[in-house]
């Protein structure tokens, strides 16, 4: 039953920073926890890059060298019903540059809460098709520095996400596709004037909304899940960094990543599961070409106990 919790990889750490909100509870996978199931655990992520896209121009920057972002995120998931889950997560993030004089930053980033609802489940051919609706919010837990890219720990906006997702599974082989719209609030920075495409006499920065897409597929068995995934984050607006300029929170940040996700539930102790993931940035804009690796360990509990431990496994399929 531990497999029911909805934990994910942090493909978003593949970006400048984990700014697109660490939605590690993957609100974008098709796995549900059963009613009264509660799962909690930490996940560590290491993400780094040396090349980045200045607008569309790929380059390195010897004055920052390699930018490394690490985080430890505490994640918790709970099954309100078999078809309705809630997920909460919050990371501590720290950054550093390997060259130059700029110092890194650290702090508690954004808390996120997502509700995932399995709205439709139907037979399709020999397999099963499920359709999900996911909604969530994330918002900063601390007054961290926003306008210090690429070394700030987050972008500071409060995000509302609406996601639609479809999943098909047959004989433990699965494919899942999802699309999300992310509404991002404006943010306030530490200076009272800035230049994006023109000069702005305010400390408020208009953050463009974003879209997110994911296609994933692979094996989803009783104990082992192994999937390949492609993810795209597209900022709907924003502007390009100009030549040799600094990045800015409202840049048009896009990234396409490819990765692997593996989760294993310990056979003779099914409350316990471990996961690992790797993600590589294939293409981007105004972002670093990051490679990100995550590892987590999770423990599941029951409240109420009206369900047998083994009953829940089926519901994932």
């Amino acid at each position, binding site marked *: 039953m531990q497999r029911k919790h909805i934990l994910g990889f942090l493909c978003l750490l593949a970006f400048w920073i984990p700014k697109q909100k660490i939605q590690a509870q993957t609100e974008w996978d098709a796995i549900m926890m059963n009613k009264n199931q509660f799962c909690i655990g930490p996940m560590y992520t290491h993400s780094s890059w040396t090349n980045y896209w200045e607008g569309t121009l790929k380059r390195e920057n010897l004055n920052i060298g390699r930018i490394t972002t690490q985080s430890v995120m505490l994640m918790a998931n709970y099954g309100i019903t078999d078809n*309705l889950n809630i997920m909460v997560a919050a990371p501590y993030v720290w950054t550093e540059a390997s*060259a130059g*004089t700029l110092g890194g930053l650290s702090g508690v980033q954004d808390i996120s809460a997502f509700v995932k609802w399995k709205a439709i489940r139907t037979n399709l051919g020999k397999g099963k098709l499920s359709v999900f609706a996911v909604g969530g919010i994330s918002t900063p837990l601390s007054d961290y520095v926003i306008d210090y890219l690429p070394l700030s720990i987050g972008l500071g906006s409060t995000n509302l996400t609406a996601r639609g997702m479809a999943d098909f599974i047959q004989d433990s082989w699965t494919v899942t596709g999802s699309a999300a719209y992310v509404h991002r609030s404006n943010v306030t920075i530490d200076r009272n004037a800035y230049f994006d495409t023109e000069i702005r*006499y305010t400390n408020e920065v208009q*953050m463009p909304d974003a879209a997110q897409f994911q296609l994933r597929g692979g094996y989803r068995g009783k104990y082992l899940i192994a999937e390949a995934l492609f993810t795209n984050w597209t900022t709907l607006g924003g502007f390009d960094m100009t030549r040799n300029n600094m990045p800015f929170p409202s840049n048009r940040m896009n990234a396409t990543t490819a990765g692997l996700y593996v989760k294993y539930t310990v056979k003779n102790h099914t409350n316990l599961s471990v996961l690992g993931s790797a993600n590589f940035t294939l293409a981007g804009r105004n972002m670093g070409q990051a490679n990100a690796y995550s590892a987590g360990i999770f423990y599941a509990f029951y409240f109420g106990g009206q369900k047998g431990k083994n009953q829940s496994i089926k519901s994932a399929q």
Partner: protein
Amino acid sequence: MKKTINIQNIFLVAMIAMACSCSKGIEERTDGLPPLNPVRADQDAGTWTPILLTGPTEFTVAAPISTASPDYRIQINEIKSMQSRMTEADKKLVEYWSAGAVLRWNEIMRELVALHNLPPYQNDDGTYPFPDPNNPLAYPLFPFANPPYAARAYAYTAAAQYDALVAGYYYKDEYKRPAPYVVDSTLQVMVPKTTLPSYPSEDAVVAGAAVEMLTLLFPGDQDFIRQKAEEHKKARMLAGANVRSDIEAGEALGRSVARKFVSRARTDRAGVAAGNQAVWTKLEEDTKARGEIPWISLETPKRPPMLPLFGKVRSLMLDSLTLVSLRPGPPPSTSSDQMKAETEEVYQAIKKASRDDIAIVHNWADGVGTYTPPGHWNAIAAEDFIRQDFSEVRWARNMALLNIAMMDAAIVCWDAKYTYFNPRPSQLNAAIKTSTGTPNFPAYISGHSTFSAAAAAFLGHILPEKAAAYSAMAQEASRSRLLGGIHYRSDCEVGLQVGTNVGSYCIQRAKTDGAD
């Protein structure tokens, strides 16, 4: 099923909340300003002392045609015709420009500085290209509007506008041609009426001077500059404030006066301030010969120091002896206990920096891609001047002296930087990681401190009730550089002192130029 409906409702509510949540528009501080309505017309400003002009009549403005003439009537009708076709965009233009000609051109210049304040990317061989004023649109774009370049640009443009307005006000008083709405009371007027004669148009004087100066300083942006000038002139006619001949005479005068400043700028030695390899090597050798550790670039590849000969640039107001007399004594020796202690102080400051400290560092950083510290002080001054309802000529005079003070601060500060060629804290202790970019020039004395103290001193003279606030802002700007890990205490303290001294010359000047 019931549950499903509830959940559907939740999603519905969430979707609606997202759709209607906070409109994303941002409001800027100088949006929607009321039109300028000077408390004092300053009609006698033709008697004020100009900066470079020998007198207000150095450039002649021909007598205007009579307001009783048929040609003048045609010009009134031109306004009426424009007004009858006024669009929403036209109304926005009128609203924008009515806030003040000097204000808006100052903002435009700040925008050009921010656009151009980008250090060139290195060549493949590790050397750096230099922007070429004769080929401004080839990479690296001309100019690299770094703080000294910007300080000089702001000063020249403001001073040219001021001198042109002194001449303009002289001719206004000489010819006393009334405003078009005085001649024709049926004319629709969208700005506060004034008794100030309208020929030549003070707005067009400012625009003409701006176009001429900015074309020199930002030659790759001529289309943008001309478009702004066209909009400005159109706005004045749409508003019913000026007829075409007011505008044309004003623009011609502004351009003529500014050309004198352009000639001066071409020979003020700023064009050779970048130096060359021989200059850079000599700075290093001379510093070693004095037994001190020379500054080295902390960039990779090592970038030549920024404008090492800017200290030799001619001031618009001070002679070279005065400039040299403003040079501070040397910094603590790089081998002294004091320097060791000051380096340790920077290290501790960075290690202990609070969230508020970082906010101070970033608020005052004014680094790459910004309007620079002089631009920041222009913004501070402008936002306070808006509340004073100064006449255009008083706006120009205050902006001119403010920016001359900051240009002189740049000259004296850069002179000190390259006289002593003192290393940055991160050079003496690589463990010092900064919270803002390390500038690519020597530490002593702090540019931010010098600019800020000069500006604060002068602004305190113009608005004495805010003198203490300006001084506190200058101190905070200065301290931000220590908190950010890029300056020692000596850089900041001596910088503030030198800046105050530089500012005193413009205060002295303000007391005697006829405007106080």
